[in-house]
């Protein structure tokens, strides 16, 4: 099964007529890790909400081998794991265990399978010890990792992260990278954090004013200061994209493979 994204001429108008997406064409192949960059209000989050059918615009969108239309919605949402920017929005159940189980239960899995999924997902983000804690007792970095576990438990084909490194201190940010690099999934990472993108993703796409304005290798895009400046993106002072060592992929065999499900 393909876990690619194919968007063709995707248009979304806000009720006031403002075009949040003005014809997005984006193709992401199976197994890619892509950073979606862009200034505030460029339509990044709007695009991401389309991938899960939470917003529907004009044009065609195919995700993980399925047309995103009403009839497929249940299956689409099971295949696309969407991690929201604020973990407090994502974690709404009284305990971590219940929250991680929420998705699998909605998929109608039986109890033993749900327990196995919860365990597997929490292990993948190294949060097993927090299983009976309440989300508000966790630090921001821990909450973020649990939020990722809540979608991993659904074994999505495609992982979409909205600003995963926002509000994290450097250490929590590094731990998040450690966790993400082992997850063997097609990944779309929406971010402002260019160093984060360059460590994790090999390809970057810039979206600006509702259209894709650049699509190339991550290091090429980040070395193009003029392009970045044009779209209100900026590298931290002293940061040299050429000297970034990209995180290895789980299938590089340089590190143990992630044990999460099978990527079919």
């Amino acid at each position, binding site marked *: 099964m393909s876990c690619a994204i194919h968007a063709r001429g995707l248009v979304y108008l806000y009720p006031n007529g403002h075009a949040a997406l003005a014809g997005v064409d984006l193709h992401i192949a199976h197994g890619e890790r892509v950073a979606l960059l862009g200034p505030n209000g460029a339509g990044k989050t709007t695009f991401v909400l389309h991938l899960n059918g939470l917003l529907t615009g004009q044009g065609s969108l195919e995700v993980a081998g399925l047309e995103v239309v009403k009839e497929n919605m249940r299956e689409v*949402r099971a295949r696309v794991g969407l991690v*929201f920017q604020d973990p407090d929005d994502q974690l*709404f159940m*009284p305990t971590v*265990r219940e929250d991680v189980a929420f998705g699998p239960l909605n998929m109608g899995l039986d109890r033993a399978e749900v327990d196995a999924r919860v365990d597997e997902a929490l292990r993948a983000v190294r949060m097993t010890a927090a299983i009976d804690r309440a989300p508000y007792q966790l630090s921001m970095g821990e909450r973020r990792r649990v939020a990722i576990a*809540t979608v991993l438990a659904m074994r999505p084909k495609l992982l979409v992260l909205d600003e995963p490194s926002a509000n994290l201190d450097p250490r929590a940010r590094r731990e998040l990278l450690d966790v993400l690099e082992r997850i063997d999934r097609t990944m779309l990472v929406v971010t402002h954090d260019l160093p984060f993108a360059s460590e994790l993703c090999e390809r970057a796409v810039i979206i600006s004013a509702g259209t894709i304005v650049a699509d190339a290798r991550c290091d090429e895009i980040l070395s193009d200061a003029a392009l970045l400046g044009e779209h209100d993106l900026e590298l931290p002072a002293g940061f040299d994209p050429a000297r970034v060592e990209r995180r290895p992929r789980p299938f590089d065999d340089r590190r143990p493979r992630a044990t999460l499900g099978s990527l079919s």
Partner: protein
Amino acid sequence: MLGLLAVTLVAITTPFPLWPVWVGCATVMAIIAAGARIPARTIWRRARVILPLVLFVAVFIPFFRKGGEEWSVGPVTVSEEGLQTLLAICAKATIGTVSAVILGATTTFPDVLRALDALRVPRLFTLIAAFMYRYLFVIVDEVQRMRAALASRGYRPRRAWQVGAFGRVVSALFLRSYGRGERVYLAMLARGFGGVMPQLDTLAFRRADGLFVALVASSLVAFRVALGAAT
């Protein structure tokens, strides 16, 4: 857990002349508290928050309730029935509060919610309570941040019109919470929410729990019925 509910129910349904039942309730609660190793100070500290409010209301009853003998204390009259009601309310309120405190000290809130579910309380109520529990702390955090922001800009309301700023804080809070509600709903949809909240564990109601409830409830109910029959 459920036994404490029984204690409260029995206590509430007991009319004044059967006052020994209240002693029975208190004894049972004392045993439970001792068994769970809850220090008396904890119970007292927590009960102190609620009790004065309840008792404050009760204090006025003897002066308004008519019936039985009446005595005049200066300008006001006190009725016998009123005094009985006062005592009854005090006893019931204390028993109810303390049993709630014991429940709070022995059981985590998620467990209470699951217990309510198991007792077939409508899902809507338990869901509202669950979300309240989850987001109360988030909202309290937000309020504290806003208060800090106000205070750090020298906001110290002295005059009535300065309260306006506080009103705006409240409305900002409402808007933020509303926006968060929408985002939470999106997050639920994104994980396949279809209108029905899935249930992870119905609480394992073990034999020991059944025994506990049966013991507490039956002994108290029996006590209550026996006394009721005697009078």
